[in-house]
């Protein structure tokens, strides 16, 4: 039977992609951020997952306002990045696991989640940056991937409570898959940041630290916030916390913290890293 072995949360901002491209790992600005990742990679090397479910938000690459689904799940044999408007180079495609994708989609739709299934899907920095942080060697693709894209562009966004429930339903779906597979779930984005408006540059360290603590043992406390609360407390793009809640829901009730890191500022964000292991 397939099993979710744990999850990782990480920022996904484009600036990280640039820093990786320029190998700024020892640069004083970037070092406190990048230094968090070796431990996460060690954990992954130990766990050896077969599949990564990558919960992220599309930032206007694969989805436009003509058709803006709340929850989209990839069911393609592979996923490709694109230029995104600023000339990013094509990366080797990320292999998918369409059979597991369809199993999850069937399970979720029967569980009354109204999923958008995507048999072709371009993935943006919300997906590629976390993958590069956790599996830096771009010539290798040691895990198959299932992208789960969540609308954070067009309000209304799904409520934090709904997102936690989606995660729980993903957990049930994976647990009912008959093949022996180890699955990790990535919750990407966050923590507090705001790019737009006179309030641009807003960061809320206290709120971020509280999230990093509560999400381990008490995610329901975070799921009580409204989207409007999150925008107020974490900034307009801080609402990406809902992606972490989906990840957390999928891990099951009991998890243990393997590793965490937090650093301000990375570009305009408070960057949080967390490695959680599901109870055996």
């Amino acid at each position, binding site marked *: 039977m397939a099993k979710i072995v744990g999850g990782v949360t990480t920022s996904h901002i484009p600036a990280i992609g640039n820093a990786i491209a320029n190998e700024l790992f020892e640069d004083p600005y970037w070092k406190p951020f990048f230094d968090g990742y070796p431990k996460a990679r060690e954990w992954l090397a130990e766990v050896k997952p077969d599949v990564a479910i990558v919960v992220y938000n599309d930032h206007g690459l694969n989805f*436009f306002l003509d058709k803006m689904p709340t929850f989209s799940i990839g069911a393609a044999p592979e996923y490709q990045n694109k*230029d995104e408007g*600023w000339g990013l180079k094509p990366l080797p495609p990320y292999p998918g696991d369409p059979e597991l994708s369809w199993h999850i989609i069937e399970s979720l739709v029967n569980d009354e989640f109204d999923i958008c299934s995507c048999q072709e899907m371009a993935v943006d920095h919300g997906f590629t940056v976390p993958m590069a942080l956790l599996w830096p060697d771009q010539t290798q693709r040691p895990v198959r991937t299932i992208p789960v894209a969540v609308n954070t562009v067009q309000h209304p966004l799904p409520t934090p409570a709904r997102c936690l429930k989606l995660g729980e339903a993903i957990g049930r779906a994976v647990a009912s898959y008959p093949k022996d597979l180890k699955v990790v779930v990535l919750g990407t984005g966050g923590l507090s940041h705001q*790019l737009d408006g006179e309030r641009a540059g807003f960061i809320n360290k206290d709120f971020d630290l509280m999230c990093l603590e509560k999400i381990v043992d008490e995610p329901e406390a975070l799921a009580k916030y409204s989207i*409007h609360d999150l925008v107020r407390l974490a900034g307009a793009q801080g609402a990406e916390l809902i992606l972490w809640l989906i990840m957390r829901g999928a891990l099951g009730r009991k998890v243990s913290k393997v590793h965490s890191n937090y650093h301000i500022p990375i570009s305009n964000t408070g960057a949080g890293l967390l490695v959680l292991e599901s109870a055996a």
Partner: protein
Amino acid sequence: MTAPHEPIPGTTIFDGRMAMKGYPLNKMCYSFNEAAARQEFLADEDAYCAKFGLTDEQKTAIKERNALALLAAGGNIYYLAKFIGMLGLNVQDIGAQQTGMTVEEFKAKLKAAGN
């Protein structure tokens, strides 16, 4: 469109009301995902804006590279980011512009949030 929330200063929620206002502007910015579209825009900005049916307010905001005016005209930050990226600007440049700071001041403000 339902129960109005308490406003958050300096923050515009991109809801249905803003979406209706910004559709042509956002559609144009979404097109910048393609390099060919960016070239077409840069070759003749006015013609490209007209092709997407931008309002006068939107055309002016584009012409002036004015982030706050683009947002007020219904622009969504995710699509505007394509326009900003195409101009070679980053989120700190735009943050500074929107908050009326120099880029150095804006960076210092971000850093201070870590204390």
